[in-house]
């Protein structure tokens, strides 16, 4: 069970900012994205513009294997615009 955090455009598309999600402990970042899109299909349009932050480290969507622990924060990070 991880906490998924939504920001900016991804929060608008998903309609929420935070939720719990049950996912396998070992999963690729792309598979993780696909799990999230199952729950929120409107997110599909931003697939090519987001990365994840898993335990506050950036992870691109791809074949990267991530190892998740219960309570980990996984954030969806649309293109940033600070400063």
């Amino acid at each position, binding site marked *: 069970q991880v906490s998924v955090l939504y920001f900016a455009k991804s929060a608008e598309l998903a309609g929420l900012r935070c939720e719990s999600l049950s996912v396998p402990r070992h999963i690729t970042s792309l598979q993780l994205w696909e799990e999230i899109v199952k729950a929120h299909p409107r997110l599909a349009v931003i697939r090519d513009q987001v990365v994840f932050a898993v335990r*506050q480290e950036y992870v691109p969507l791809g074949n990267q294997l991530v190892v998740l622990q219960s309570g980990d924060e996984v954030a969806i990070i649309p293109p940033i615009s*600070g400063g």
Partner: protein
Amino acid sequence: MDESEDVPKDFIKLKSEKLSVDEVSELVVSPYCGAVSLFIGTTRNNFEGKKVIHLEYEAYTSMAETEIKKICRDARQKWPSVKHIAVHHRLGVVPITEASVIIAVSSPHRAESLEAVTYCINTLKASVPIWKKEIYEDEYSWKENKECFWANSEK
């Protein structure tokens, strides 16, 4: 005069209240430093012919603070004589001409603090999870920094 050792410090703050240039520059002033360099990012009133009413910022706060700390650490590695670094970023609504970000760096001589300030703002725009929404008269737009490596740059 000051009893503390004047150990190099990072001052990082994300807040919704109006930012103060005086406050941020005073944080980095040091008797050992002859230079304080400042960058202020202010909100513009137009984008591609559209009138901007105001900006709204949001952040992944805990990670943003961690990323800014990393930027400070890296700046000190590149410019070891840098003394204090302050980064204040505003969140929420920022009216036109008000500051969204202020960065101040002190160093004994001016070259290092000028270069370090430039490095800090450029790297902030590439790596810190903060988002800006531009509000126009009849629509809005989530901005994307060109420094962001996962944004689509072709449009």
